[in-house]
């Protein structure tokens, strides 16, 4: 299958890319790694007249230390993020999720910013970034603004990034020393998760001092399981305590029903996977 015809530019700077968006408006589409966009173009579910390639903008690549956070450039590939020492030290939950994301070839091309801006509720990055309280840097005609994780994901495949804006990077607040685990439930290899749970916990001795829990594919966006987080705080890191808190994982969710499972099944999975994710993150 071959995409419909389009024009193409590959700007060298964010400013040039913004200018291309301003010039072409609705007819333009940004391409990052293209691992989600190209299948869509080939199936002709979308037919932009202009494709603006961010792949030549060097300033959007790489992970750097940014004080109380690490900054992941939007065009850093999943493979690069997955082996980055700063990510391993300060945002291990993201690295754990990436080991389960798609397959090796896709991880070599797909990008951190591209996947988040695509905002597939079954994507593997949304829940961990939401759980860690990521801050999204969005460049537009008027400069760069910061969007909190809670405000970034709006609906299925919809984010707070405007049509004249570009996601340039994500600040991940440092969670140094936190235990982390991403528990993903699939039927077959390299499938999108039916449900997945991202959990990070800070232990104080045998007590869970703080917990962060994100849910994948339990609604139209990634979701934060705040009721679970609150129930876990101050609890002993034991199977019983975590099981009780995990029962709250379905609060505020609206899971889809499809061929992989109905909403009730997903609610069941969310509880089970939350328990497993938290216990593994806590090293129990």
């Amino acid at each position, binding site marked *: 299958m071959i995409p419909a015809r389009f024009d193409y530019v590959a700007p060298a700077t964010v400013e040039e890319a913004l200018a291309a968006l301003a010039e072409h408006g609705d007819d333009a589409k940004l391409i990052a790694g*293209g*691992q989600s966009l*190209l299948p869509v173009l080939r199936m002709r579910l979308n037919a932009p007249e202009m494709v603006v390639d961010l792949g030549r903008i060097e300033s959007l690549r790489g992970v750097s230390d940014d004080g109380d956070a690490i900054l992941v450039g939007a065009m850093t590939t999943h493979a690069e993020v997955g082996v980055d020492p700063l990510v391993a030290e300060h945002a291990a939950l993201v690295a754990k999720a990436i080991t389960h994301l798609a397959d090796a*070839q896709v991880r070599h091309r797909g990008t951190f910013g591209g996947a988040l801006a695509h905002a597939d509720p079954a994507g593997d990055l949304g829940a961990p970034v939401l759980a860690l309280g990521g801050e999204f840097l969005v460049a537009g005609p008027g400069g760069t603004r910061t969007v909190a994780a809670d405000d970034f994901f709006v609906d299925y495949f919809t984010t707070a990034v405007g049509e004249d804006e570009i996601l340039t990077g994500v600040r991940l607040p440092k969670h140094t020393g936190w235990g982390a685990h991403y528990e993903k439930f699939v039927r077959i*290899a390299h499938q999108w998760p039916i449900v997945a749970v991202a959990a990070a916990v800070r232990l104080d001795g045998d007590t869970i001092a703080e917990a962060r829990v994100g849910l994948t594919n339990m609604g139209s966006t990634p979701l934060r399981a705040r009721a679970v987080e609150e129930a876990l705080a101050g609890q002993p890191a034991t199977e019983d305590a975590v099981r009780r808190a995990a029962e709250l994982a379905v609060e505020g969710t609206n899971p889809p029903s499809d061929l992989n499972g109905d909403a009730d099944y997903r609610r069941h999975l969310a509880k089970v996977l939350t328990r497993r994710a938290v216990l593994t993150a806590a090293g129990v």
Partner: protein
Amino acid sequence: MTRITMTVDGAQVSDDVEPRMLLVQYLREKLGKTGTVIGCDTSNCGACTVHLDGRSVKSCNVLAVQADGAEVTTIEGLATDGQLHPVQEAFRECHGLQCGFCTPGMIMQSIDLLNENPHPTEEEIRLGLEGNLCRCTGYHNIVKAVQYAAREGASS
């Protein structure tokens, strides 16, 4: 049309292409490198895997213009002076193929896997080949071939 220049299997090539042309189309239709095959055409099966600047990618899911300036290695660029690449040799030795259609992609991905992890466990091999499907379900001998190649030091 957009002018692109890249190195494919050691040779520099340059062409005017439509931006919508996929890398796999460019390799097969412009350069005649039909060793790289199109399997599912939906970026699932991995049959079209090539190396782009040293890392494995699904060439049906990359635009030719995105590969401008890059170095591409296909299955056709592996053998040197009539000698099969050690991973090709391992697939032959272990009969790591049945119909052979997935083989170019399996070999390219296996090389990438061994470059990153020269001594993988069986589980690491199966995970590393997760993005490559064999419709004959001949996975068992494919895994054996990668283990054989690892023993023979294919990554060195």
